């Protein structure tokens, strides 16, 4: 500011600029303080735990902590194609002895067995020798261990131990894609008949895609009808969309279980119209059909509501204008109405797709073996196999997919444009 122009002062004698900035800052802090409680709450109870999931999914410190002396000694193991030097054997022996005293040796055997088959047997043999005090610490440990079992003389087993040294691993993520680290550290595919996870990922995508498609095909006409009917009729019909929306998910799934069972009403109807014979009723539940039907009905309101809110803003005179300019109703619809509804289509489809891709309850109840999704696999590993790190890894793989879609959604529609009811 040049010295000629007089600084504008407030009544307190402070320059106006400074005073305004101060007020601005105060308002910023005030706004932030209002958001802070929820933000803090979510960060502690939700965002950090998701980070914790990541730590668990890559955590491989178990062996690292169990064999500290071994890994220290392995730093001097230079020629990896030959058996390690005496000090590695001694380090391993000392670590293992300590584990045996603390009853932890079984865990190590199991973990190493996952890395290379046959480890459990030879660690158990070593354990027996240690227990009977058969190992003389004053002479070469290497020779004594090598005598216990021929596998101890196989360098591949020592290489396997070395591979477990890093405290972090991406093995769980590879497992989620049916791959693993081969003996030489490269990435290999599991046998074709054991690639269960890839099937599940593909099936999840397939079901989410088709459910979204069905919801779109069914949702578009009724959203259009609701948006164009006079208020008094559309309010009544809107209840047909909103009542399922507000009704418990389990109640709706239960009603589909009743409808789709073999003696159920849908099958009764098929028999009645002669589509199938009475003794040859098709199985419509516990397979993909059940998942498709139930999920489409459950997610349909999430397609209709965004479509409706967009269609509501389209003036009917636009269609009339299109027609008056010589377009047939179909052309007017295709060239005028449809392009205007694209934001709604985007919002509805992405919302349904995001919800469908993480669905758990309905597939678990009506899906059977061929209709379950990746979420069911995550729940299975959380509750049954207790392989929490694998469940975390798969959860995060699913989450990254969803976040990409969410990001696109945010770019296209904006999160603050989500409308409810």
């Amino acid at each position, binding site marked *: 500011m040049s010295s000629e122009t007089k600084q504008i002062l407030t009544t307190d004698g402070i320059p106006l600029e400074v005073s305004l900035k101060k007020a601005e800052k105060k308002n910023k802090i005030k706004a932030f303080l209002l958001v802070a409680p929820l933000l803090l709450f979510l960060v502690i109870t939700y965002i950090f735990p998701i980070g914790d999931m990541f730590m668990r999914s890559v955590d491989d410190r178990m062996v690292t902590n169990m064999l500290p002396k071994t890994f220290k000694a392995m730093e001097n193991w230079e020629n990896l194609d030959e058996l390690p030097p005496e000090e590695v054997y001694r380090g391993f022996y000392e670590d293992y002895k300590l584990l045996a005293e603390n009853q932890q040796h079984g865990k190590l055997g199991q973990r190493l067995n996952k890395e290379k088959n046959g480890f459990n047997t030879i660690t158990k043999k070593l354990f027996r020798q240690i227990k009977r005090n058969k190992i003389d610490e004053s002479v070469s440990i290497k020779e004594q261990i090598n005598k216990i079992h021929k596998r101890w003389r196989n360098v591949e087993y020592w290489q396997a131990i070395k591979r477990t040294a890093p405290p972090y691993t991406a093995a769980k993520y590879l497992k989620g894609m049916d791959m693993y680290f081969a003996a030489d550290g490269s990435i290999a595919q599991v046998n074709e008949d054991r690639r269960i996870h890839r099937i599940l990922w593909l099936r999840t995508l397939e079901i989410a895609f088709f459910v979204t498609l069905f919801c779109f095909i069914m949702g578009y006409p009724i959203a259009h009808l609701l948006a164009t009917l006079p208020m008094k009729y559309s309010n009544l019909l809107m209840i047909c969309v909103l009542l399922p929306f507000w009704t418990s998910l389990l109640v709706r799934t239960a009603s589909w*279980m009743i*409808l789709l*069972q073999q003696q159920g009403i849908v099958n009764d109807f098929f028999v009645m119209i002669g589509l199938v014979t009475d003794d040859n009723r098709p199985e419509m539940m516990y397979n993909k059909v059940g998942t498709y039907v139930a999920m489409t009905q459950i997610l349909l309101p999430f397609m209709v509501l965004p479509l409706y809110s967009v269609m509501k803003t389209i003036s009917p005179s636009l269609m009339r204008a299109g027609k008056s300019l010589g377009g047939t109703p179909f052309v007017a619809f295709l060239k005028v109405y449809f392009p205007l509804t694209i934001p709604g289509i985007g919002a509805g489809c992405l919302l349904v797709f995001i919800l469908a891709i993480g669905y*758990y*309850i309905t597939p678990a109840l009506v899906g059977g073996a061929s209709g379950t999704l990746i979420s069911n696999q995550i729940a299975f590993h959380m509750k049954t196999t207790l392989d929490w790190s694998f469940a975390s890894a798969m959860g*995060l793989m*699913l989450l990254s997919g969803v976040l990409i879609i969410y990001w696109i959604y945010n770019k296209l529609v904006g*999160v603050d444009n989500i409308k409810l009811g």
Partner: protein
Amino acid sequence: MALPSYTETRYRIWHYVYIAICTFVFFFLIAPLFVIFPLSFNAEEFLVFSEGMKNLDPDAFSLRWYKDMIYGTKNPWGLAAKNSFIIAIFATIGSIILGTLAALGLSSRHMPYKGLIMATLISPMIVPLIISGVAIFFFMAKAGLAATHTGIVLAHIILGTPFVVITVTATLSGFDHSVTRAAASLGSNPLNTFMKITLPLILPGVISGGLFAFVTSFDEVVVVLFLAGLENTTIPIQMWTGLREQLSPTILAVATCLIILSTLILLSAELLRRRSERLRGINR
């Protein structure tokens, strides 16, 4: 939607096809809910319409499954209902308080990093429930809150706040901030202004967000399945267990009650929405 008299035949046909499609979709949406009503009054144990029911024989109908729901010794529905209501009410209160405060901050034009913070606050609604379940379970297990009511309430606050944030932010988007300034110029302190001016105006949004939070908590099963012990069983857990093991008519009696509850909630939500639109001067 009457057709003008000059409509060509093929468009006339298309119009009726369109109406037929819409009728089918509405039927598809609403009909499954109505299967549950009659079957819950079934006198027999099977989940199909008996001959007597088809002939409207009064003996084929009974209230035995409702009695079983209330007095049945095997079914802990009473405990489940009590837990569900307690958890949902506290979760709703928590969600409303945290969500409304955050929405007030977010709709201030001075709020820094608005987009990022909004995305974070909404995230529990977008992240698949199974992942939320795993993450929240890890937290509650570490904090020693697994298998406690407190843990479940906190989990449901996480899941419920996004709804409150969204509805209250939407209500505030049409809010005229000069009224709060007017109150301030007349000597009202901020708290008084909030209680007497802002809150009554945004109340419809707050309540409708609260309804969403209530329903979310009341209906939530994925996260609760990770967190609940035997003592914390809720209605959705009981239904989940029942549906997995054996579909009994008692579940249908419970389901009927839940449908009635959701109808009531729907009606109140609709009334609120209309009131809110009237208050904000949106004419439709």
